[in-house]
């Protein structure tokens, strides 16, 4: 029992070690543009944690990344790579925006769940073709999902700019160019901020912070997926297939069915990624709708060790990085994109350090086995 704890601790510290390694490597780049890395990291911390509203921004930033990390982690668990989270969430957000503005006159308790469902369906729909092709034709899901990402970019562009563009906006052409965007979503589908709730506890958030109820929903979903994976028969099947496909088949599990269910569920969660921004911030979908959550989700899942509960702190870490990036750009003129480099380096260091750690633990075990 005691030995187990030691290994658990060793595994647990590997993400932290990876963060330090990535930060050290990024320092080289910061030094290259003649800035002081210590000052950069220090500014990131002070800017992020100095005030309550800044912490709320971090939580807002982390919200889509929790969904994204969960979507990627779930696909990893079943032994598949869902690199298509990016496209799935854009389609999901588009479907939600469509259901949000086109359906009118419903009470919020019907309209809001409907919009969320539309998003999940959109994401699942976009995951369908890759998994069907994987099973029927043996096409590797990595390439198909990436291709689906590019297809979704063009499709969304077409729908927003050519089909559903807000015509009333166009009339204002004389007053500067209109944003190419879809009509505004009905108030019955929007999600309220957490401001009034938090003010009960004496935390007063300013209006320019958009922290909304999708944050607690994301946390709830993470616990839900955790429960699904470790306490339900389906979750068991999913993990067995992910761990060893042949063994799963031998024990009477149909891996193909599990693949389909797991991948579609991953896509459905991916469909929810954009909702916090869409229903809690913009209120409409435009061509500049935030991109890149899908790829960051891969990093979040890896740092969270593909554990739904690990995804939460990992997403918070990235929320902090993005907030800190604004700080270093404003105060010391270091480009925000330093953080993207940091993210890439973090994935590499986390996977390398995990590998090294696994090997180290294996050697320790061997040694102990020999001694006893």
């Amino acid at each position, binding site marked *: 029992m005691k030995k187990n704890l030691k290994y658990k601790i060793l595994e647990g510290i590997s993400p932290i070690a990876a963060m330090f390694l990535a930060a050290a490597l990024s320092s080289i780049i910061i030094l290259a543009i003649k800035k002081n890395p210590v000052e950069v990291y220090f500014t990131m911390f002070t800017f992020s944690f100095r005030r309550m509203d800044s912490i709320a921004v971090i939580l807002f930033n982390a919200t889509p990344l929790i969904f994204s990390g969960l979507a990627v982690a779930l696909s990893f668990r079943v032994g598949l790579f869902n690199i298509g989270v990016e496209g799935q969430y854009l389609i999901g957000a588009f479907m939600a925006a469509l259901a949000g503005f086109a359906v009118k006159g419903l009470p919020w308790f019907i309209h809001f769940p409907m919009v969320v469902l539309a998003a999940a369906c959109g994401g699942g729909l976009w995951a369908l073709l890759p998994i069907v092709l994987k099973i029927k*034709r043996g*096409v590797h899901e990595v390439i198909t999902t*990436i*291709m689906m990402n590019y297809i979704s970019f063009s499709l969304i562009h077409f729908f927003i700019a050519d089909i559903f563009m807000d015509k009333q906006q166009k009339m204002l052409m004389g007053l500067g160019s209109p944003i190419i965007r879809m009509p505004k979503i009905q108030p019955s589908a929007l999600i309220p901020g957490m401001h009034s709730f938090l003010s009960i506890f004496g935390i007063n958030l300013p209006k320019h912070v958009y922290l909304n109820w999708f944050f607690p929903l994301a946390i709830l979903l993470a616990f839900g997926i955790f429960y699904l994976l470790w306490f339900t028969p389906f979750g068991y099947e999913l993990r067995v297939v992910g761990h060893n496909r042949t063994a799963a088949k031998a024990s009477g599990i149909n891996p193909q069915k599990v693949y389909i269910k797991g991948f579609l569920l991953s896509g459905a969660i991916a469909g929810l990624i954009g909702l916090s921004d869409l229903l809690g911030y913009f209120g409409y979908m435009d061509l500049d709708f935030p991109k890149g959550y899908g790829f960051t989700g*891969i*990093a979040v899942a890896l740092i969270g060790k593909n554990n739904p509960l690990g995804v939460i702190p990992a997403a918070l870490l990235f929320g902090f990085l993005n907030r800190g990036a604004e700080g270093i750009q404003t105060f010391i003129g270091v480009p925000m994109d330093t953080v993207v480099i940091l993210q890439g380096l973090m994935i590499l260091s986390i996977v390398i350090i995990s590998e090294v750690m696994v090997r180290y633990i294996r050697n320790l075990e061997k040694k102990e086995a020999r001694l006893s």
Partner: protein
Amino acid sequence: MIITEMLASAIRMGIPILLASLGAIYSERSGVVNIGLEGMMMTGAFWGALGAYFYGPFMGVILALIAGLLMALIHSIATVTFRVDHIVSGVALNILAYGSCRFLSIAIFKMATTSPHVERFRPVDIPVLKDITLLKPLVSGISPLIILAFLLVPLTCFILENTVFGLRLRSVGENPWAADSLGIKVLYMKYCGVLLSGLLAGLAGAYLAIEHTGMYVEGMTQGKGYIALAAMIVGNWSPIGALAAALIFGLAESLSFRVVEGGAIPYQFIKMIPYILTIVVLSGFVSKSTPPASVGIPYDRDSG
């Protein structure tokens, strides 16, 4: 005439896919999946434009090669030495490439998404052939990099099939344990495979930036690195096959430009064609092709 012009345009579009695809062949034949090609190509494009802007096209190519090589070095350290999952490492590399290109573009060009225009290579004519009217669009006024790419196809064939190096590279990709027992340095060969793919992806990026657009534009690779992987699979891991597949993708792209000029179909749908083609082609052909037996499996001497 129209046919040769179409072919010439297909070649221009297909060259970056061909180069990256040849690189993918070296990497996969040694057993390493290289999803990072996209990022390597993007880095190559950035450094190619940078070199060409400050020192002319030749230096652009040199810098692109070095940049591709360094990216490949990261991939090989992660996948070969540390046995990290090949796809995870490749995806990380692509994120790293995106971030570093954007960062450096701001730092050097003061613009996040584009570089200034750069000088191209002087176009060349192929002697003798250029006098044949029919072939004129194909052989006159073309980029020397196109000629280089075409020369690399038979060269790659020769290296893989007829040299000791090629034999060892392939054996490492088929059965590293057997290769190891014959005294072949498995890890060294895998490094060579990945590094060669980095060089070629860097060259593909240099072609894009210097010859194709004449500048670096963020996201200019547009998934060509992934399409190159598809071309390699369709071409059954052989250089000739990759050439044919790259030309098909090039043709699809050049056709799409013509359809856009027609204006009958919204251009967003035309832009999808290469990606849809990739999916269609993979789902139609992949069952016939045979990847190297141990591709994607990290080599661990103690297991297996």
